[in-house]
């Protein structure tokens, strides 16, 4: 009956209750959404970084190089000469160097020319078929196979650039030789082939564009020697201290540290996220004030009701708990509704990002930081209802009943 009384009291003046609830749920939803997006982006970055200490590519923006070479979320900065790359990658400080050549796509998914080490790096396991070993053989990431409905032995044409509406290389037919199991990393969204395939197609495309004849052997030779980027893993951290500076100062290439660039990006995002979090925190404080004003105003109307309850034998502590519970229920309901709204927001964001960027965000996982948000919501509810509860605790029943 007491619980029924608490709920009925909250519903008796629905407008003020709803206002408090809306403020609370918006505060919680915004903070939760920001926390979840930030956490999932960090997780995504960490998953895709996979022990890559350095990216070598054409000169330009280092962030663009990292975003394009590792996350395939930007256009490449240009191409680099393989000859120049070979001079660097044989350095004894380098444990592993994975070449990357790209520029084409299939239904919006990047076609990446590389070697089998790339597949091993992301711990990708074959679901069907085998790895590529001939030009024009393609291995599909799990998301690509699912989205394009392709299986082994099926064929397709690549498109120049990242747009689905770009020029199709109609005279170069890819054949699917394998499909990978899902890894939760960037490889799920890639069509992987060998470097020679990408070079061959681009060489042909270049000839088409310029009208140059294939017997222009010098130009053809130069083209063959280009790749887009190299992913480097060092034997020791010493390599990271020496090689980037050397590459940036003495070659036509640039070396970018993915960790450094991603931290810079997260810091930039962090300023925006922090600002939004402050705004959400202010909304939550306003929600606390709204709960307080709502409870306090109603308390003045309910003094006689409280005195009546005392006359039925309810103790001061029971009334104290009734008022605290009203604040608490509002806070917990606001938190739950806020989390639901946050998950709905994340689900919509996920739909958008998976369609536009092939980036999947996991929508329903409860983040550990959200426990703190629950604790903060409960504290706001308790603090907002504490003063009204103390007023009820110290209520003089005789005076209240006599004055009515």
């Amino acid at each position, binding site marked *: *009956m*007491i619980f*029924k*009384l608490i709920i*009925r*009291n909250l*519903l*008796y003046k629905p407008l003020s209750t709803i206002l408090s609830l809306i403020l609370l749920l918006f505060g919680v939803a915004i903070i939760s959404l920001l926390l979840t997006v930030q956490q999932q982006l960090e997780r995504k970055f960490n998953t895709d970084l996979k022990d890559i200490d350095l990216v070598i590519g054409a000169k330009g923006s280092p962030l663009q190089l990292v975003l394009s070479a590792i996350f395939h979320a930007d256009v490449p900065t240009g191409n680099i000469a393989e000859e120049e790359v070979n001079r660097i990658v044989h350095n004894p400080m380098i444990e592993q160097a994975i070449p990357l050549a790209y520029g084409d796509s299939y239904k919006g998914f990047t076609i990446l020319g590389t070697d089998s080490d790339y597949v091993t790096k992301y711990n990708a396991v074959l679901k069907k078929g085998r790895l590529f070993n001939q030009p024009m053989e393609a291995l599909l990431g799990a998301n690509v196979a699912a989205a394009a409905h392709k299986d082994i032995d099926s064929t397709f044409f690549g498109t120049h650039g990242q747009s689905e509406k770009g020029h199709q290389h109609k005279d170069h037919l890819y054949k699917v030789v394998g499909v990978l199991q899902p890894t939760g990393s960037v490889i799920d969204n890639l069509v992987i082939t060998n470097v020679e395939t990408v070079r061959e197609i681009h060489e042909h495309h270049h000839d088409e564009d310029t009208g140059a004849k294939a017997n222009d052997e010098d130009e053809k030779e130069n083209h063959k020697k280009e790749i887009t980027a190299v992913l480097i893993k060092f034997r020791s951290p010493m390599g990271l201290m020496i090689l980037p500076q050397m590459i940036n100062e003495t070659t036509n290439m640039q070396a970018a540290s993915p960790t450094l660039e991603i931290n810079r990006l997260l810091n930039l995002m962090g300023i925006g996220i922090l600002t939004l979090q402050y705004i959400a925190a202010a909304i939550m404080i306003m929600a606390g004030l709204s709960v307080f004003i709502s409870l306090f105003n109603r308390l003045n109307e309910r003094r*006689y*009701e409280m005195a*009546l*309850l*005392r*006359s*039925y*034998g*309810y*103790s*001061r*502590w029971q009334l104290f708990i009734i008022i605290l519970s009203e604040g608490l229920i509002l806070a917990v309901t606001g938190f739950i509704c806020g989390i639901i709204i946050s998950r709905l927001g994340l689900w919509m964001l996920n739909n958008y990002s998976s369609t536009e960027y092939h980036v999947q965000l996991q929508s329903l996982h409860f983040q550990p930081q959200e426990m703190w948000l629950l604790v903060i919501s409960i504290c706001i509810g308790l603090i907002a209802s504490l003063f009204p509860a103390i007023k009820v605790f110290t209520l003089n*029943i*005789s005076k209240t*009943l*006599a004055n*009515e």
Partner: protein
Amino acid sequence: MPVITTSNIIYSYDGKRTFSYPDIICDAGETLLVTGKSGCGKTTLLHILGGMLNRYKGTILINGVNISAFINGQLDAFRGKNIGIVFQHSHFIKSLSVRDNILIASKNNKYTNLQQLAEKLQIKHLLSKPPATLSQGEQQRAAIARALINKPSLLLADEPTSSLDDGNAAAVLDLLQAQSAALGSALIIVTHDERLKQKIANGITLS
């Protein structure tokens, strides 16, 4: 053994006004009328007897238990189990129905007891309604049901008829006396309503 016995009750309001009350003895099934002019301390006495005021001198025994020695929490628990109170204005908790207003005063939420009581007080058809929609007479009957739901040994009524017309006043008094007699409760009515003096012989007048 009398349900209630008081001796030498003195209450002082902020050290300025002091009320000195005559001793009271009331047996089970008996009705005691406490009358007096406005401001003579009638409601204060009722609050003292009901355990809602505790800074008084003197002794109150209810069913042989000295409630004067109780502290707040003990008084609340004792009042809930043993004392029913009907107030001058039949206030209710607005957000609850008549049924829930009566049940919230019950220690055990005794639904069967409520049905019998509602039938006797002729409010069975009003139980699901909001209290504000009831007439004054209906509200007073519902307030009596609320006071009786725990089958109290002491029933206190503060001006239960003063705002009612003759017909309703007589009906409410009959109900109070009949129900307290049926439960074996002692009934103490505090009032300045002269109509009740003619109907209740056992009384004291405060000056």
